[in-house]
């Protein structure tokens, strides 16, 4: 089923166990950083779905990350006793709706015009967040006042606790990735792939290419919204940073660093970018320059990102194993 073998399942279980054990192995700061990586992974996933799978290069994915973050923060602010998970879902649904509405216009266009329109809509949403101070707090931002999670059989989870938040974010992110991986195995995703490969031919075998792309855009927006809502919760603060152009380009950089065609690449890209930013910025204020150079190297020499190095590393490993085996 789904091309899974025992190796995959064992690998997945070991990875899950390692992630569960992580709070015992790292400090609070690192744990918060890992939670941030998990949030960014979904953000990058929203780009990867569009670019890598549907062939749509969006320069405005921060719009949906931002809508998810703001709607989640506003839900906590304006709705008394807002259930924790409902706030996340609300943020994701709002981002999905925004993506649906914007996608209906954008996917009518192709190539550079599509990309530019995604920027225009993203800037439009940024302007709302920036100017509507009474609601969004403008560039001063909003504090996210999270409610504790009440458990059905009594007791509650402290949402201010970094470890609890790490587990919650991890659970939601893993579920989103599993849902996305499943999605890529469905007939719907075959339509998405056909649209990327040959839009005209897809129409002439009977596919409604317009609706297919609108839906792919919406799904990407939804995942981006989940990432944004989780980010707002993790940071306990939202400002226009989450929805500006810089955020969209950071997402693009993360995607290409990891591998813009790969779902797993989105995690790798988010992790490398976030960790490098944290590490380099400790030593130099010119950290963006160094990351810029890394990005140039990747675009020039490793267009499929770090994920493309994995099979090469695996081949080298097996070569090395064979060589050492012969020696013995």
């Amino acid at each position, binding site marked *: 089923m789904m091309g899974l073998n025992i190796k995959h399942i064992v690998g997945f279980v070991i990875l899950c166990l390692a992630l569960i054990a992580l709070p015992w192995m790292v400090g609070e700061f690192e744990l918060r950083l890992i939670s941030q990586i998990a949030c960014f992974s979904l953000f990058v996933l929203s780009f990867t779905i569009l670019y890598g799978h549907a062939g749509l290069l969006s320069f405005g994915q921060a719009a949906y990350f931002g809508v998810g973050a703001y709607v989640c923060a506003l839900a906590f602010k304006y709705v008394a006793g807002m259930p924790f998970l409902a706030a996340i879902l609300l943020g994701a649904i709002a981002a999905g709706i925004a993506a649906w509405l914007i996608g209906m216009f954008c996917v009518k266009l192709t190539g550079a015009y599509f990309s530019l329109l995604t920027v225009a809509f993203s800037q439009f949403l940024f302007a709302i967040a920036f100017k509507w101070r009474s609601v969004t707090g403008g560039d001063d931002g909003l504090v996210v006042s999270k409610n504790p999670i009440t458990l059905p059989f009594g007791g509650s989870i402290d949402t201010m606790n970094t470890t609890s938040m790490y587990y919650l974010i991890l659970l939601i992110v893993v579920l989103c990735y599993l849902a996305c991986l499943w999605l890529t195995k*469905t007939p719907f995703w075959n339509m998405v792939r056909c649209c990327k490969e040959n839009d005209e031919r*897809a129409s*002439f075998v009977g596919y*409604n290419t317009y609706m297919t792309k609108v839906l792919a855009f919406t799904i990407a927006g939804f995942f981006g919204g989940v990432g944004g809502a989780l980010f707002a919760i993790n940071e306990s603060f939202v400002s226009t940073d989450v929805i500006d152009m810089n955020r969209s380009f950071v997402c693009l950089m993360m995607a290409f660093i990891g591998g813009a065609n790969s779902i797993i690449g989105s995690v790798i890209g988010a992790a490398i970018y976030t960790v490098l930013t944290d590490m380099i910025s400790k030593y130099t204020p010119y950290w963006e320059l160094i990351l810029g150079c890394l990005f140039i190297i990747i675009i020039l020499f490793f267009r499929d990102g770090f994920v493309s190095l994995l099979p090469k590393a695996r081949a080298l490993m097996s070569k090395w194993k064979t060589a050492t085996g012969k020696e013995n």
Partner: protein
Amino acid sequence: MLEIKDLHKQFGEQKILKGINLHVEQGERHAIIGPNGAGKSTLFNVITGKYAPTHGKVIYKGHDISGMHPHRITRRGLGRSFQIINVFGDMTVYQNIRSGVLARNGVFFNFTSYLDGMKAIEEESRRIIESISLSDQMDTPASEMAYGAQRALEIGLSLTTNPDLLLLDEPGAGTSKSETKHTVELIRKVTQNKTLIIVEHDMDVVFALADRISVLYYGEIILTDVPQKIKENKKVKEIYLGEATCE
């Protein structure tokens, strides 16, 4: 089956189709011939919805399909192939054909089924691949196949939607004599009990396949008749066929 009434197509000031009238009966094999620039491919593109007509109607099975989106026309049972190979290049032969079979079976916005586990779709896809003699290249990416095989896949992809009316745009374009013979045999085999409209430059293909032929000349159909009469027509000889071809 297909009725075209006073069909016009204009791009800016340029009139490409100037009042086409055509009637194609069910089960007929109809060829459209004409010199380069006569408007043959434009006519195909208007019939199949790629371009909306400037004026006039395309009636298919009694329904006006003029200006309809290609996917809606395809779903009504009208399939087409392209002059320049137009397949899903990075997909394998199997994935190409399966994509069409999924569409034919109305499997569109399905988020719950596991694609590789759909046995009925798989069986149907394999049957079509066998009919176009590409079983041995099932897992080869389309873009890596020989030209003739890509041509066969192009026709196979048009067949996946199980069309009642099939429009083939120069199926023999770019193929060698032996490949053309194979293409004619393939078309004959796969279009049994179907209505066929074919645009072709190669007269051997046209006369081997067509029941009737229409001659398109600068956006107008100047003659529709059986192959023998077309061969003997003086005007056709002058504008298209040339004496040598007809003798």
